Each structure stands twice: as C-alpha cells, then as structure tokens.
C-alpha cells in the first residue's frame, strides 16, 4: 500500500485532504441551517414540539449514538493500523467499523417502523417533518459512507492494493462526518424541546 508522508500543518493538506473538508463544512452548514430553522419553529408551536419530542424513543437515540461513536473509534484505529502497515488488522477493524454502521441502520429502521406504525409520518406535524427530513438525509449519508468503506475494504484487501493512504483518510473523514452530523441532530431533535 502506498503511504506518502504528508505535512498536515500545511493549510492545504488537512487529514483526508482539502476536498473532503470542504464537503464536511458544506454538510455541517446545511444540517446546521435546517436545525436552526427547526429551533426557530419551536417558538411558533412550543407545545406541539414538546409533545412530539416525547414520542421519540430516547433509548434508541442514545444507543444509536453509541453505535456511531464506536464505529468512528474503529475507523480511527483502522487508519492508525494502516499507517503502521498492519494491513490484516486494519481489515478487521474496518469490518467492525462497517458492522457498527450497519447496527445503526438496523436500529434506525426499527425506530422508523415504530413511528410509521403509530402514524407519525412526515405530514403528522412540523416537528415530524423536520425529524424525517433531517434523520433520513443523515441515513443517506451513512449508506453512502458504508458504500465508500466497502470499496476501501475491497481495495486494501488486494495483494498489491492501489488504494492510497490519502484515499483511506478521505473515506475515514467522510465516515466521521456522519458522526459529527449525528452529534448535532441527536441533542436538538431528541433532547432539548
């Protein structure tokens, strides 16, 4: 595997590369703006938002946070092991990263099923419009992240991998971005109203 020494202190070369960091900031600003709009809407219908928030399952939300953080932890270890050229170990940790990502999606599906069964769909009220819009958009990012990680896994599994360390770091940064977005969504949607 090709590992080139990068000077991260250079402003143009943050870990993962400048392009993925531009994407990360654009995503954070987009999600942040919608969350601010959601908080703004609370002032119009505080009672509805409070009652709707109580209809969410805090335990699911907390467990999903644990799944994503654990997945992010294994991703960080994967990158660390690859830098040490421990390809075999890195593959194992990358599988664990994806496994916890899949657990997140599985629990999210259970949560969505319960909400839809109770009739709490996107048109139920303003709170649930924001809930579905924000969490579904986040879920799409997690699915895209899993596809990217699968391609990284297949890339580094080869005898003579052409996958570069920068590619792995960029993929890791994208995956961690899903954590960052969730860390904004979780308190605002599940906790503060």
């Amino acid at each position, binding site marked *: 595997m090709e590992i080139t020494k990068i000077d*991260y*202190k*250079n*402003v143009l070369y*943050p*870990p*993962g590369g400048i392009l993925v*960091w531009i994407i990360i*900031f654009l995503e*954070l*600003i987009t999600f*942040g703006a919608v*969350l*601010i709009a959601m*908080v*703004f809407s*609370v*002032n119009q219908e505080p009672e509805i938002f409070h009652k709707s928030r109580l209809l969410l399952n*805090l335990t699911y939300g*907390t467990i999903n*946070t*644990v799944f994503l*953080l*654990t997945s*992010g*932890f294994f*991703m*960080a*270890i994967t*990158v*660390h092991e690859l830098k040490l050229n421990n390809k075999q170990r890195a593959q194992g940790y990358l599988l664990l990263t994806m496994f916890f990502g899949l657990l997140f999606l599985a629990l999210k599906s259970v949560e969505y099923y319960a909400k839809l069964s109770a009739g709490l769909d996107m048109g139920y009220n303003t709170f649930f419009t924001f809930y579905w819009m924000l969490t579904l958009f986040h879920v799409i990012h997690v699915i895209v992240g899993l596809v990217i990680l699968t391609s990284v896994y297949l890339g580094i599994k080869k005898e003579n991998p052409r996958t570069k360390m920068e590619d792995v770091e960029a993929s*890791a*940064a994208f995956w*961690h971005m899903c*954590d*960052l977005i969730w*860390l*904004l969504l*979780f*308190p*605002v949607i*599940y*906790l*503060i109203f």
Partner: protein
Amino acid sequence: MVTPLSRNLFDILIMNKQNVITWILLLLLTVIAGLVSSAHISYVIPLILLLAVLKFIGVAFNFMELRKANVFWGVLIIGFLVVFCGLVLLIKT
C-alpha cells in the same frame, strides 16, 4: 489466561491509548446527556449543548486528527460550533 481475543484487545488498548480514552469519554458524555435531559434542573439546554460540543470536539480533533492539522481548520470547526450553539441558545431562550 491470555486468549488471542484478549491479546488483541490488550494490543488495541496499548497502541491506541488516545483513541480509546476519547471513545470512553464520548460514551460517558452520551450517557450523561441522556440523564441530564430527563433531569429537572435549570440550564438543561446549555448543558446538553455543551456536552454535544465536547463530543463534537472529541471526534473532530482526535478521531479525525484535526489536532495534527493547521490551526486554521480547528478554528473553523470551533467557529462553526460557536455560531451554531449561539444561534440555538439565542432563538430557544
């Protein structure tokens, strides 16, 4: 008795001490946020946001290795958090 699995876990702990500590702290902060949200105390919203900010910084600076990057990127992330949390608090309170 040292099994291959326990040996492997031991290696993770030693070789990735900083990531392990960050991970444990992140999990603790998550549990605390859950408990704080259901407690009837004043300043719940600022407290929950503070816990979220700490987790965000833990992921960005340790897992994403922003601590190794140029200070510009760290300032941008902190700046985003200040603006986001400031607006939430301003609108909500």
